[in-house]
């Protein structure tokens, strides 16, 4: 518990003595580094990555012991990597510093000695009384003391916190809401007790003690409705006063920020597994060579022939120490098999590649002027691996543009224009109904008409803008005038109760309770009214996909009201479990209603939503709709957007069914139905779409889900879940209705952790989707939550853009990065394996085959750019084709290009090529002359020949894999080869004065002057590439994938078109 003295005034003596606490100042520090600690801290951070640490160790080993390669060969690349990363992180941190400074120096008004003072935000301290004006953001977490509005309320949007851009009402503390100016505020004498800072945005419990002269202090409970969070913005309220309770890094926003977890992509995981495999290969290679070395050296004339004596210290060294150093030296020699540059290249590819997404014109929304947003480029390729899409309905699949369609009062149906003409308000019930609608809301009339982005009411003559926390309400209110009532209590809306109530006193002194909410939460509480008629109407509307809302009321006597008031007061004052107690009280109050009627509001589907869903399903992605709406409404939407089709057999797993049978039976029945079919056919998870198969659609509601998720008494909780998952797996579409936000996340988690570990994507637009978005592998936020974009990994303007994002961009990203990863390992196997083979011919002495410059530059410059640009530009099939043929997405599903088979193929190809290089060169050189002047070549020429073949083969292999040759690819691929040749000519063309060896002098030129070397290079390149070409052609011819068929088809069409045009 922390205690705060409002305005830093000590409580009057005699009250409990508090231990003074120290609070941090209001400085927000999101930056990781300072100017001074950047270098050490950043280095530390970077070397915590396993790969970097590994390279550091290699580098240190090279420095310490006598190793075959100079420390430069691994030090330079490492330095490069570290520097690039450090610059990137430093730049990011600099941006953060700038943002922090802007935040921390933002001027804040607060009261000091009865005067308003302007100070920098960072100087704010706990206990300060702060004034915030309209449209300003709160500088820290404040307890709301008073407002310029008479009723002591204010409106805020928490768009930047949770994505909810609607206006929320907050209430000033009762005892202080009358204080309207600085002097009055300064006179306030109070302490606040509250909990220690917690990250939950919606929970807050505290108490304020206000001291009036010498009297006993009055205690008031404080709840989240009194708390104004840092980051939220004051709206529609001129100014407010508040006292700072949490500052700086203790604000809820800061606490939330820190809690964000890191997501890792499937490709990254595969990459790490491959890395471990290669590490094992590396260690075993080093071990084999060490052992062989000592076996081979056991004869002294081999260990130390007369022509090659050791130095004294070498001779004296302990055998085990020597063996260990040899082992390390072999490790160093072969360490390039795990490429440093792969990490840089992968990072660059992801970072730069993500720009193509943001640049995409087709994904730009003209209406809002927004394009897609990439918050983390780490997950790009995951977009090509999605197996489950969880989508919110309202606002994501639908427009979230509410149109009032009709209302049903006492069984009579009215349509809007009738209402607006004002001709119907003669019946008493109708009047009551509209009264209820008008009263039972938290809509505020915004008189300011300068706010843009809000459509002005078309019906009302005045330029009024209605703002509310629920879109339904505004739609209803706009046509109807306000009545004069006195508001007594608000039983606010929550997603568990799914209803809200108000208690009002009419001008005649009658007290009414109006309640409005979802039909399922109203009907059980109704005792009279034309229930059946209205219910049938409500159900009809729901089937048509309309949002329905029921309205009911009851009249309270004065005694009843006072009882209710007391109950509410007690509950609100509770310090602990306040929400639970409030819920209990609400439950007690909201009963025995008289049903008034129902309204229906239409929410239209977003454009191309159906098309998108169809495409996703064709792509083998299972689409789940998670919504809070009622089943009928949601099901209608699902039919409209083609999630369910006419021939889809709907399986229901709803509360109603479970009431009839036990959950156990329902589940087993369903699984029987589903498995009967899939059992007889091949159990391909993706075959759910073939026309000869029965399509299943599952509908489940929140209550049924919580039953399934609930662990059973006997501890066999997994049972139902497994069964449920089994059913889901065989359904092409699942609709989850009546979901609470947390249940959405639960569902996602359930699927994510099921035994296949599918990749999930969640897309939503509001605060209620944030938890689901954070849970899923990839989270996408649509329209409403633009401000909450940092919770999502990607943001797109419209649902329809999901199609291109997954089918085109995701597919490309995946194909590109998987080739990149495989290719990197391949080229380093090719690079290092000849080195390994050479050890058998140099007495296991760790002699390098290649020159130091080649060792260093191979990954940095000779072979780096072509693959990077392949990773950015490759399009194995055109984007249009991918969009037109969603089924191509299945070709890369389940990490297809990085499976073990593919990995082993690449590795063996690398080994084969390496064997070809080495033994090809060996046979070419073995005990013969390859020059026309009879002169001999040495070991460096031998290595250079192998290296030349290597560079050419590896680059040409990439060229063979490239399907999309833009001028950039041409430039990079041929440019790399030219660069290699030019570099080699230069490197061998000069006696380099700063080097202590000149072993490469004229080696490359001499090699080029030899005919057999040329012939050998051409031969070896051909032989190395041959198997891969053959494999490609045969696979394409005999077992073509869908992608390959399409490629061929398009190829021939293009050829045909070309032939026709040329004729």
């Amino acid at each position, binding site marked *: 518990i922390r205690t705060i003295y409002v305005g830093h005034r000590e409580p009057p003596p005699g009250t409990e003595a508090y231990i003074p606490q120290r609070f941090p100042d209001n400085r927000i520090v*999101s930056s990781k580094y300072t100017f001074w600690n950047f270098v050490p801290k950043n280095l530390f951070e970077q070397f915590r990555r396993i790969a970097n640490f590994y390279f550091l160790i290699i580098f240190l080993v090279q420095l310490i012991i006598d190793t075959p390669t100079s420390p430069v060969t691994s030090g330079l690349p490492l330095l490069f990597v570290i520097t690039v990363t450090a610059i*990137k992180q430093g730049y990011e941190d600099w941006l*953060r510093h700038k*943002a922090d400074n*802007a935040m921390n120096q933002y001027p804040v008004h607060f009261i000091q000695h009865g005067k308003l003072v302007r100070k920098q935000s960072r100087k704010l301290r706990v206990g300060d009384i702060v004034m915030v004006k309209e449209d300003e953001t709160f500088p820290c977490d404040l307890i709301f003391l008073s407002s310029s509005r008479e009723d002591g309320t204010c409106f805020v949007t928490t768009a*930047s916190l949770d994505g909810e*851009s609607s206006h929320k009402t907050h209430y000033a503390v009762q005892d202080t809401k009358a204080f309207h100016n600085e002097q009055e505020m300064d006179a306030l004498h109070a302490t606040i007790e509250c909990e220690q800072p917690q990250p939950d945005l919606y929970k807050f419990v505290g108490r304020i003690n206000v001291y009036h002269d010498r009297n006993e202090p009055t205690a008031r409970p404080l709840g989240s409705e009194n708390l104004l969070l840092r980051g939220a*913005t004051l709206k529609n309220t001129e100014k407010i006063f508040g006292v700072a309770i949490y500052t700086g890094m203790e604000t809820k926003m800061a606490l939330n*920020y820190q809690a964000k977890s890191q997501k890792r992509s499937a490709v990254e995981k595969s990459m790490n597994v491959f890395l471990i495999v290669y590490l094992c290969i590396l260690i075993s290679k080093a071990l084999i060579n060490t052992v062989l070395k000592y076996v081979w050296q056991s004869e002294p004339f081999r260990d130390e022939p007369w*022509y*090659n*004596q050791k130095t*004294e210290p070498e001779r004296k060294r302990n055998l085990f120490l020597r063996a260990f150093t040899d082992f390390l030296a072999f490790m160093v020699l072969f360490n390039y098999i795990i490429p440093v540059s792969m990490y840089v290249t992968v990072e660059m590819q992801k970072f730069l590649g*993500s*720009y193509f997404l943001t*640049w995409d014109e087709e994904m*730009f929304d003209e209406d809002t*002027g*927004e*394009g897609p*947003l990439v918050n*983390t480029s780490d997950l790009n390729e995951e977009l090509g691996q999605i197996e489950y899409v969880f989508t919110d309905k309202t606002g994501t699949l639908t427009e979230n543009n509410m*149109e*009032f369609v009709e209302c049903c009062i006492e069984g009579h149906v009215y349509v809007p224009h009738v209402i607006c003409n004002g001709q119907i308000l003669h019946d008493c019930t109708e009047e009551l109904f509209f009264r209820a609608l008008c009263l039972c809301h938290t809509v505020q009339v915004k008189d300011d008409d300068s706010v*843009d*982005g*809000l*459509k002005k009411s078309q*019906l009302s003559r005045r330029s009024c803008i209605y703002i509310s926390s629920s*879109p339904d309400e*505004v739609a209803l209110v706009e*046509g109807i005038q306000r009545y004069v009532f006195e508001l007594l209590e608000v039983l606010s809306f929550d997603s568990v109760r799914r209803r809200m109530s108000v208690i009002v006193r009419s001008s005649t002194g009658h007290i009414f309770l109006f309640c409005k909410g979802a039909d399922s939460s109203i009907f059980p509480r109704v005792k009279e009214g034309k229930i059946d008629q209205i219910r049938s109407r409500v159900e009809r509307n729901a089937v048509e996909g309309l949002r329905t809302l029921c309205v009911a009321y009851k009249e309270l006597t004065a005694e009843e009201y006072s009882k209710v008031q007391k109950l509410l007061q007690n509950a609100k004052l509770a310090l602990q479990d306040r929400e639970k107690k409030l819920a209990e009280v609400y439950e007690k109050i909201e009963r025995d209603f008289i049903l008034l009627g129902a309204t229906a509001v239409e929410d239209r589907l977003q454009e191309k939503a159906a098309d998108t869903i169809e495409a996703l399903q064709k792509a083998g992605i299972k689409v789940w709709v998670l919504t809070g709406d009622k089943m009928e409404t949601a099901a209608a939407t699902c039919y409209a957007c083609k999630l369910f089709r006419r021939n889809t057999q709907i399986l229901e797993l709803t509360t109603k069914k479970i009431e009839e049978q036990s959950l156990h039976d329902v589940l087993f029945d369903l699984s029987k139905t589903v498995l009967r079919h899939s059992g007889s056919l091949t159990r391909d998870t993706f075959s759910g779409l073939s026309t000869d198969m029965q399509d299943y659609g599952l509908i489940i509601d929140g209550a049924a889900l919580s039953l399934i998720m609930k662990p059973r008494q006997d501890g066999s909780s997994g049972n139902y879940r497994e069964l449920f998952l089994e059913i889901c797996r065989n359904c092409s579409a699942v609709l989850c209705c009546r979901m609470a936000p947390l249940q959405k996340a639960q569902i996602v988690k359930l699927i994510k952790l099921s035994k296949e570990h599918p990749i999930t994507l969640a897309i939503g637009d509001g605060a209620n989707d944030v938890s689901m978005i954070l849970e899923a592998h990839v989270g996408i936020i649509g329209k409403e939550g633009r401000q909450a974009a*940092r919770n999502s990994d990607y943001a797109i303007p419209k649902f329809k853009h999901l199609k291109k994002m997954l089918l085109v961009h995701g597919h490309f990203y995946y194909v590109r990065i998987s080739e990149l990863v495989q290719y990197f390992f391949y080229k380093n196997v090719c690079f290092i394996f000849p080195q390994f083979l050479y050890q058998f011919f*140099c*007495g296991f*002495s760790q*002699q390098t085959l290649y020159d130091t410059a080649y060792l260093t530059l191979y990954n940095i410059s000779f072979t780096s750019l072509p693959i990077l640009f392949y990773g950015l*530009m490759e399009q194995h099939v*055109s984007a249009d084709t991918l969009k037109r043929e969603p089924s191509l997405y299945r070709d890369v599903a389940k990490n297809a290009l990085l499976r073990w088979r593919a990995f082993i193929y690449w590795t063996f190809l690398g080994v084969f090529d390496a064997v070809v290089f080495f033994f090809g060169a060996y046979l070419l050189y*073995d005990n013969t002359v390859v020059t026309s*002047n*009879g002169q001999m070549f*040495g*070991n460096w*020429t031998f290595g250079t020949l192998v290296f030349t073949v290597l560079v050419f083969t590896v680059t040409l292999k990439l060229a*063979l894999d490239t399907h999309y040759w833009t001028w950039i690819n041409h430039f990079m691929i041929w440019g790399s080869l030219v660069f290699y040749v030019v570099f080699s000519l230069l490197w061998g063309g000069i*006696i380099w004065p700063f080097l*202590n*060896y*000149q072993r490469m*002098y004229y080696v490359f030129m*001499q090699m080029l002057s030899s*005919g057999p070397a040329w*012939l050998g290079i051409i*031969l070896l390149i051909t032989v190395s590439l041959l198997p891969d*070409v053959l494999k490609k052609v*045969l696979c*394409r011819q005999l077992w073509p994938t869908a992608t390959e068929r399409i490629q061929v088809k398009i190829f021939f*069409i293009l050829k*045909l078109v070309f032939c026709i045009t040329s004729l």
Partner: protein
Amino acid sequence: MAVNYSAKEEADGHPSGGVGMPGGGAGGGGAVKTRKPDNTAFKQQRLPAWQPILTAGTVLPAFFIIGLIFIPIGIGIFVTSNNIREYEIDYTGTEPSSPCNKCLNVSWDSTPPCTCTINFTLEHSFESNVFMYYGLSNFYQNHRRYVKSRDDSQLNGDNSSLLNPSKECEPYRTNEDKPIAPCGAIANSMFNDTLELYRIDNDTRTPITLIKKGIAWWTDKNVKFRNPTGDGNNLTALFQGTTKPVNWPKPVYMLDSEPDNNGFINEDFIVWMRTAALPTFRKLYRLIERKNNLQPTLQAGKYSLDIAYNYPVHSFDGRKRMILSTISWMGGKNPFLGIAYITVGSICFFLGVVLLIIHHKYGNRNTSADIPN
């Protein structure tokens, strides 16, 4: 008439941004973009591109072409290689019957050197220029400790390195506190057998002129290897303060009588200093030039090889050979390249045929099916 509502379309951000923590640490690609992206071909990934694919149809001709090119090349190389005359004598002397058997266990400093003579007969005459090589087996010139045991600065004539050789030369860096020139294991173990060739014509031994220049790379002889510089051209003076490699009988400035083949620029020395790639290697020893166009360089007939046997190889199981070879445009005798070319060419040709069959048998399945001809 419908009532339109769009309360949630609050598009613009809040003045101060409201967010203290800018984008994730991962550094996403997107800053907030409010403007429409440029419609450039690059940004829209629509750059004009050549989109080749490897199908049986497209690869087929390539296979045939490779086959058709490689096979003739292979045959050409093979024929050339077969036309090369090569004669090799192992004079290690491990067999007791060998004339050099007596010298098997010589040491470096045996004076006078052990000499032996091996007679041999050339069945065919060597028409063009003949190159004389010495070959060593089981000699690890590519051992790491050996390869790095040299000082290129010293060999390049750098005076400071001459007197203070690189540490890499250990343990052949100094001797009796004097820097060794040339330092290092490579120089120290320089091959020092002397080979002389005689033609035996009716019991008369005619020496064959062996040319000792032009056996090293031109760049090595003229750029990479330089004698130390100083006043005058007296090598003895220039190498003042250094000592000879331990195993050498005489210092480096006494390798040859001709000044342009003495010291570091002695060609035998330069040839030796180019370390071989594999433990079995040969090095160019002498050239035998063709005198005139009427006579072959080496006629068929009897010859004798006189060897001053100084170089011990028995201790490490090594072998020593003398090789006489003619050279074509593609070097010495090497059947590998020709055979490899013929094999690869044939395989390509064969694969071409296989692909042709496959293409015809399965080709219709996925290509021309939906495309009218």
